[in-house]
């Protein structure tokens, strides 16, 4: 329901849980469903381990495709898990309670995005050096890979939340969510792989990384608002 109304008062805001409380809650819930949470990470690792077997164990050839493979896998791992950012809350009624809380709901949505990144993007980033090794990524490219994955996966979570908010009422297992968000993932992937490729080739890679940072800033500012507006419509 869209009301043109004033903003909540400070007393209303003080009553509602803090930003960090929302983050802690979602991380705790993810921890209680550990199996679901680590599945995308295992998927990510397994596919990266399959590449040398399926393509070629030649380090030269592997290092040429490693950045692309890792980024595609990071993207797929996010797609596997992003649906859950609102799906459970939609099913058990928590989402309704969130929507009628006397507060600006973009804030808890941003908290959910942060929590999603903490349990998906961050572990994925920390896991990436190990997979870089299986893909013979040159050691000099590790800092670029870590930074680009950290920033990029946060962007994936933020933009994915908008897609998830649009499809939350359609039930699980739909292909609509990937269709919606993959086009929006393309720019960050281009810059993400470029960052790592530059590092592999020994070039300065701060340029594409800065572009990714800018995209992340825009996503963090806009996506919670877009998701909030979408949730009001779709979960009605």
């Amino acid at each position, binding site marked *: 329901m869209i009301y043109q109304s004033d903003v909540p008062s400070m007393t209303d805001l003080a009553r509602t849980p803090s930003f960090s409380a929302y983050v802690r809650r979602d991380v705790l*819930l993810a921890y209680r469903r550990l199996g679901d949470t680590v599945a995308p990470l295992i998927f990510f690792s397994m596919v990266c381990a399959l590449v040398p077997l399926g393509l070629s164990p030649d380090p030269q050839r592997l290092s040429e495709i490693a950045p692309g493979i890792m980024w595609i896998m990071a993207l797929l791992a996010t797609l596997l898990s992003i649906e859950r950012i609102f799906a459970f809350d939609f099913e058990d009624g928590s989402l309704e309670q969130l929507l009628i809380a006397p507060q600006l709901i973009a804030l808890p949505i941003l908290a959910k995005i942060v929590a999603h990144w903490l349990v998906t993007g961050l572990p994925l980033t920390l896991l990436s050096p190990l997979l870089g090794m299986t893909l013979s990524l040159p050691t000099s490219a590790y800092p670029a890979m870590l930074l680009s994955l950290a920033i990029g996966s946060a962007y994936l979570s933020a933009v994915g939340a908008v897609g998830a908010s649009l499809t939350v009422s359609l039930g699980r297992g739909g292909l609509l969510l990937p269709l919606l968000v993959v086009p929006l993932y393309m720019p960050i992937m281009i810059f993400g792989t470029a960052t790592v490729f530059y590092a592999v080739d020994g070039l300065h890679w701060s340029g594409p990384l800065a572009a990714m940072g800018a995209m992340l800033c825009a996503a963090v500012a806009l996506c919670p608002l877009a998701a909030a507006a979408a949730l009001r419509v779709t979960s009605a």
Partner: protein
Amino acid sequence: MCMDVPVPQDYLLSSEELCFERDDRRVFEGINLRLKAGEMALIEGPNGCGKTTLMRLLATLLSPTSGALHYRGEPLEKVRYEYLADLLYIGHQSAVKLALSPEENLAWMAASEGIRDPESVRAALRSMGLGAVYDLPCHQLSAGQVRRVALARLVLTRAKLWLLDEPLTALDTEGIGLITGRLQGHLDSGGAIVLISHQDLAIGAVRKYDLSKRCA
């Protein structure tokens, strides 16, 4: 669209010619709800006549096709946050996380109203007969116990207006007794309740609204 008739201030919640259509099908029309402090509105009607839809309208989760809602005589759009701060809505999905314990669930629900006192959360659970299972994950509890976790909010809340959508589902006789007592206590202390129930409750000051005559 109804005319902007002034609504008396002494109604806590009122609706004027509320009408809702979904996909060009009229779910109900002409709902004139009048609710004062200390009163309960009981919404009745057969399955599928739009009771839950009406409840979701009152909770501002849906917006009416036409008609207006007033809170304390003010149009709801103007006092939205004030209204939401005074509101407690428990729907069919009771917002209980099965992965969390009753204590964690209730502590979160209480925190969303600004109540951050662990002892009062425990006390509320005990009063709902959940003292022995407060730290078990909710997926190990029965449906009735999960309901009790959700309804334990009624013990803690400071909300003035309660919107309860079939709160008694899955409850045993003792549980129904507990809730009835709590509802009566809320009305006695000047609160108001909108309730959907297929059971007759032993509660005074009830206005009944039969939706079966209102739906198309």
